[in-house]
């Protein structure tokens, strides 16, 4: 009987105390959710983080940035050229660290231009000493499509949501075939080139901004290839457009000491069936492997 008296006492005291605390928490929570009191803007805004200091001299800290090629879309292993290059470099005895892959399917220069102003992206860029950039394919091969669809989608592309995360107009991964089918009708050299001046100007500002964010890093820009070379009607206009794009990019890159253009045009030309994935737009595993070999040669 004594024992049960003791149990009853402790149970009742603890449970009443717990109930009171939980009730107080409940009232506080309801009040806080229904009438939230916003903070004064936080004072602890992130400081400009300095470039990575500690770490060996020859250590490679890689960040990838850009579109679906940076992400590795089309590679069944999911590695893409980024991880393949990392693997090759580390198998050669280098200390390699992949700090992040910020490739986003369907990303265009306009979207990327906004995105590199985000704190998180800048932070990652500052940690790196090797920056792999792949951008422009969506501008070139979808830019013509956007131009034809009228200003609506274009406005959307250029004014992303506050957080800058709208992934661009109809930025569907793996819809290379979709782009292709609309392209079949109107994809001419002129249409492709229409988007070029603006887009390459944006590429220039992106490259300069990255160099500004992290002056110590070396930027490797991955040149474009022509994914439509296997369609007879598109071979010549595609080649022309891609070449003018690559030339424009080369023109910008040559003006900076810490940038390199890694060409890929020749890797795919006339070998599309072997190195493109089933969407006829993105490289497959072997294609990415060839791209990564180029990158390794440039970085090494």
């Amino acid at each position: 009987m004594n024992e049960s008296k003791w149990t009853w006492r402790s149970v009742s005291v603890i449970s009443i105390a717990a109930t009171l605390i939980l009730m107080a928490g409940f009232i506080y929570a309801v009040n806080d959710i229904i009438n939230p009191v916003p903070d004064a803007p936080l004072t602890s805004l992130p400081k400009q983080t300095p470039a990575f200091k500690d770490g060996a001299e020859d250590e490679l800290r890689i960040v990838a940035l850009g579109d679906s090629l940076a992400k590795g879309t089309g590679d069944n292993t999911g590695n893409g050229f980024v991880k393949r290059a990392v693997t090759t470099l580390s198998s050669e005895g280098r200390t390699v660290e992949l700090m992040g892959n910020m490739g986003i399917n369907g990303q265009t220069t306009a979207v990327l231009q906004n995105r590199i102003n985000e704190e998180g992206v800048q932070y990652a860029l500052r940690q790196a000493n090797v920056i792999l950039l792949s951008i422009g394919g969506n501008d070139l091969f979808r830019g013509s499509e956007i131009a034809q669809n009228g200003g609506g989608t274009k406005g959307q592309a250029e004014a992303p949501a506050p957080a800058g995360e709208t992934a661009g107009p109809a930025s569907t991964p793996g819809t290379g075939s979709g782009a292709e089918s609309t392209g079949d009708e109107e994809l001419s050299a002129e249409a492709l080139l229409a988007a070029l001046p603006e887009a390459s100007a944006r590429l220039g500002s992106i490259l300069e901004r990255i160099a500004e964010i992290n002056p110590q890093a070396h930027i490797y820009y991955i040149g474009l290839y022509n994914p439509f070379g296997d369609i007879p009607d598109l071979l010549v206009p595609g080649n022309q457009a891609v070449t003018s794009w690559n030339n424009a990019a080369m023109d910008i890159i040559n003006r900076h000491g810490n940038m390199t253009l890694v060409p890929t045009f020749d890797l795919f030309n006339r070998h599309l069936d072997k190195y493109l994935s089933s969407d006829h737009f993105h490289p497959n595993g072997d294609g990415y492997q060839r791209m990564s070999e180029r990158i390794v040669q440039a970085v090494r």
Partner: protein
Amino acid sequence: MINLLPLIRNECLKIIKKKRFYVILLILLILVPMFTYAQMKVAERSQNKFNSDWRLEVQQQITDNQNSLGSDRIPEEWKAYRRIFVQQLQYYLDHDVNPNEPSGVTFTREFLDNSVSLFIPLLIMAVASDLVSGERTTGTIKMLLTRPVKRWKVLFSKMTALLMFVSLIVLSTFLVSYLVSGLFFGYKGFNVPIFTGFQINGDSVDMTAVHAVPQWKYMLMQGGLIWFVSVVVALLAFMVSVLVRSTAASIVVMMAALIAGTILTNMASAWTTAKYLFMVNLGLTGYLAGTPAPIEGMTLSFSLAVLAVWGAVAVIISFAVFTKRDILN
């Protein structure tokens, strides 16, 4: 006139003697270490991958979500969810606060967020479901009612004892998960700021009311909301145990309702009338964390009202039935 207090005391002792509460503690002591271990493995892996730099990890998380936004294969509702998630992560990143700072407190917070709509209600059911039906199964209900005590007093004492144990269960869930996860992650982290006050409009987040609260305060609020959910679940399970003859049937009824709730929240956002069901409204802590409600148009006040109505109706039905019904056997 017999005082209610001895009756409540009697009921509490019965719950303890039946060892229901120990079973609950045992379940917690077995399951929480498992969850903690799983969580630790995840944390370890991402630490290796991201050079133990949470900013890189969060940025990668943002990128991954942005990538899935582009996919046509992902339903629009999920995209809305991810858009909101990305904006919140971005907010944490912009304010240089690690949303997943690994600590015992963080683990407890996340664990409770995940367990509010199913795990904790199940624990509550373990006590609530056999309070009345158990007495009928064993036949002891006749002894109870032959005493010179009004029936409503018997039921009221049972209900009070149940509510006492609801608080104990919520409290011990917090304590066990904090104490166990602290072994792995450390016992610190009470003052880490957590953002709350994200207001969701469609698929964008209104950040104007966002404010930081220390984690202990956040957990206090969380505890309060979980307590409310638990009380409502307890009252409903209590009603079922009054209505149904056997404990097994009573457990099955409640379990089916709860599991239907998890399924509905995952798939029925098109069927808007479902928001009047109690089991869809159990995720109250989501309003605190700023996760979008399962069905559009649900707000905290709405969910509280729905739950309160269900709870009140359950109490009324329990008393009406228990005081009127013939006890046959």
